[in-house]
C-alpha cells in the first residue's frame, strides 16, 4: 500500500502514531488543528458524567489510565477538549495525559468507526496467512490500515495476538472473534452483519 509520508506505519500498517495525521511536520503549518473543533462542546453531558467518574475514584493514586479508558468508552476517542478536561479535573499536566494517551495502542486521539476490526497478526495467525485476510479487508472496505471508512462504520487495524491461536487466522470485530479465515471469501458476509 502507498506510504503516507505523514503517518509512520509499520509493516502491517498500525502506526503506533496512528494519530499522526494530526501531527505537524513543521509546526509552522498551522492549517492543521489538533482538536475536534465543534464536534464536542463544553455543554456535552458526557463531561458531567466523566467528572462524576473521576470524583468517584476518590483521589486514588494512578487514576490516569482508568479515567482515559472511561473517557474513551464514553466519547469514543480522546480529543483535545476531553484531555484538557481530564487534566483540569485530575491535576495531571496535559502533556502527561497526552503522553499516556499516545503510548498505548488502544487510545484513539481521533474518532473511530462504529465498529472496530482487529486483524490478528500474532505468530500463529501470521504463519497461517493473516496478511491475505488483511489485504482482503482493505480491498472490501476501501480503507487504509489504521484508518476509518468514510462512512464512519469501520476502523481497520492490525492487532497483536488475540489469543485464539488454535483458530488461526482470526479477526476480532468489536467483541466478536471470527476464526479460521483462510477462506477469505467469508469476509464480505461477516462484514454485512454489522450496522
Amino acid at each position, binding site marked *: 500500500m502507498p506510504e503516507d509520508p505523514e503517518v509512520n506505519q509499520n509493516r502491517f500498517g498500525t502506526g503506533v502514531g496512528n494519530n499522526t495525521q494530526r501531527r505537524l511536520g513543521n509546526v*509552522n503549518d498551522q492549517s492543521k488543528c*489538533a482538536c475536534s473543533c465543534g464536534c464536542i462542546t463544553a455543554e456535552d453531558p458526557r463531561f458531567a458524567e466523566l467528572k462524576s467518574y473521576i470524583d468517584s475514584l476518590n483521589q486514588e493514586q494512578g487514576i490516569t489510565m482508568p479515567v482515559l479508558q472511561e473517557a474513551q468508552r464514553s466519547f469514543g476517542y480522546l480529543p*483535545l477538549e476531553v484531555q484538557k478536561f481530564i487534566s483540569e479535573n485530575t491535576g495531571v499536566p496535559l502533556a502527561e495525559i497526552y503522553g499516556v494517551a499516545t503510548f498505548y495502542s488502544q487510545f484513539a486521539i481521533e474518532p473511530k468507526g462504529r465498529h472496530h476490526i482487529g486483524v490478528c497478526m500474532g505468530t500463529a495467525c501470521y504463519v497461517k496467512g493473516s496478511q491475505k485476510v488483511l489485504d482482503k479487508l482493505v480491498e472490501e472496505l476501501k480503507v487504509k490500515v489504521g484508518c476509518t471508512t468514510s462512512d464512519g462504520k469501520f476502523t481497520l487495524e492490525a492487532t497483536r495476538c488475540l489469543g485464539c491461536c488454535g483458530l488461526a487466522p482470526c479477526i476480532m470485530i468489536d467483541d466478536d472473534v471470527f476464526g479460521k479465515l483462510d477462506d477469505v471469501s467469508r469476509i464480505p458476509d461477516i462484514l454485512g452483519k454489522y450496522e
Partner: protein
Amino acid sequence: MGNVNVTVNGIEVSVPDNYTAMLAARQAGVEIPSLCFLKDVNEIGACRVCVVEADIKGVPMRNLPASCILQVAEGMNIRTNTAKVRKAVKTNVELILANHNRECLTCKRNQNCELQSLCDELGIDQVRFQGEKRKPTIDNLSHSIIRDASKCILCGRCISTCRDVQGIGVLDFTHRGFQTEVAPAFDFSMRDVDCVYCGQCIEACPVAALTERQYIDEVFEAIEDPEKFVVVQTAPAVRASLGEEFGMPVGTRVTGKMVAALRRLGFDKVFDTNFSADLTILEEGTELLNRVTTGGVLPMITSCSPGWIRFCEMKYPEFLPNLSTCKSPQQMFGAILKTYYAQKMGIDPKKIVSVSVMPCTSKKTEANRPEMEVDGLRDVDYSLTTRELGDMIKRARIRFANLPDETADSILGEYTGAGVIFGATGGVMEAALRTVADILTGKDLQDIEYSAVRGLDGVKEASVVLPIDGKETEIKVAIAHGTANAAKVLDAVKAGQKDYHFIEVMACPGGCVHGGGQSIVSAQVRLDVNPKANRAAALYAEDEACVKRKSHDNEEVQALYKDFLGKPNSHLSHKLLHTHYAPRKVYECQA
C-alpha cells in the same frame, strides 16, 4: 548510613553506602560518561552510555548495568574500561548518532554540546547504521524557546526539569518506541502552551534540541545603522555568568569586562539594569507601604520575573490582584530610556533601539507583550541572553580575557548594592527591606544584611518588626524560587495556613543567576560545582564592594524623580513604570 569498600578498575575506595557506581568511580578518579544523567533531576538510566561491568559478591552481573543507578555494595567490583564496556558504549553512542542531526558546524551548541564532547572523548570514528530518522520538526513560533526535534536524544532531562523541578510539565515523551518524541501535548507550539519560558529546560538540555530564539543579527544591524541610537542595559545576574562563556570558572564576576566588551561591540550607551532595579524598589516599596497602611490587597507579590507572571496568569489567576503593578526593571528601564533619557539628551526616541542583556529567556516574550510600550514605543526592542552576548563578543573577535575593567555610562548606569542582588533568590526582598526599613524608621540603618532571605531553600520565610503608623508591626515575608515552590506558597496562602505581607517569587530555581539565558553548565561539571551558589556569591560580593547599598541612595535615581517623575507612584510613574495583568488561556485551537 555507613561506608562500603568497592573497587573501581582495581583501585579500592571507601564510599558512603548510598553512592552509585558512578559516584564511586568519580572518587577513584574515573569519570564515567553519561548523557541522560542530571543529578537529583533525571536519574533514569535510559541512555545506556554509563554502563559498566560489575560483580556483586564475586558474581558478575549478567548484563551491563547503568552506573548512574547501580547502588554500591560491600565488595562490589566495578570495571569501566574493559573492551566489552568500551564496545557497548561506543555502539550506543553510534545508535544515538544514527538518529541525530549531525550538522555540528552549523549548530548553536557547537563546542558546548555534551554529545559532541562524548564523541570526541570516546573516539567515535564512524556511524555504522543508516536508516529512518526522527521527523525534523522545528518549532520556532514563540519569542523565547525553539524546539528542534532532529537534535533531541530523548534523554528526558527537560521533561524531568519542567515537571518535577518546576512543577509545570509542558513537555513529555509522546508515542512509543522508535516513534517516541519529546513534545508538548498534541504537538502544540511552545507559543501556545502553558510554558512560562523560564528556560530551565534549555539549561538542562545536553544538546541543541532546546535553544533560545536569538536576535543577534537584528542587534548587530541596529548597531551598524547610523540612524539608530542603540542603548544596552545589563541585568545583575549576567555579570556573574558571562565569563563562563570564555572558559572562566562558574560564577566569576566580570562586570568591568562586560561593560568594556559592550562598548567595543559598538553600543552607543552602555547602562545597567541595576539602575532600574533600584528604581523598582522605590516604586514597589512605596506601593507595598501604601497597601499595608490603606488596607490594600495583601500579600503583595513581586512582579519582576516574567516567568512567574505567566505562571500566575495561567495557574493562579486569583492572585493577579496581589501582584505588584510595577513593571520589571528591564521594562522600566526601557520606558525611562525612551522618555526621560531621550528628552534630556535631545534624541528622537523613535531612533532609539532599546536592547537588554538578560540571564533570562522569558524576558524575550515579556518585551513583546503588547502592553509593554509607551505612546507606541516599545520599552525594549530586543532582549538578549547572556549566551547571545557571549556569541556577539566572539563574532566580533574581541578577546574577552584581555579587556580592561570599565564602568557603565551615566545617567542610567549608577546602581547600589541593593540593585545588584536582584539576581539572587531573596535579593529583591532584601533590597526592598533595606529601603522600607529606612523609610519606616526614618533612620539610615546600618545593619542591612538580611541573611534569613538568602540561600537556596525552596521556600524561605522571615519577619522584620518595623513601626507602621506609630505601631510596632511584624512584617512577614516569604521568598519562593522555582515555580513549584511558588505554588506551595500560594496554596498555603489560599488555604489560610499562611499570612504574609510581601512575597518574592522568582520563576527560576536559585533566582536569575540560574535563569534560562545563563551559560550552560554540563551535567558532569554540576556534580562538583553549584552554579546557583557560585553565581549568587559573586553578586553578594559585588554588593559588599559597593559604597552605596540601598536603592534610595542612588543619586541618578533621585535625579530621575526630581527632574521628571516627581515621586514614586506619581501619575507619570504609573503611566511609564506600571502595568496590568489578565488571566491567560492556553492550548487554544489556532485553526
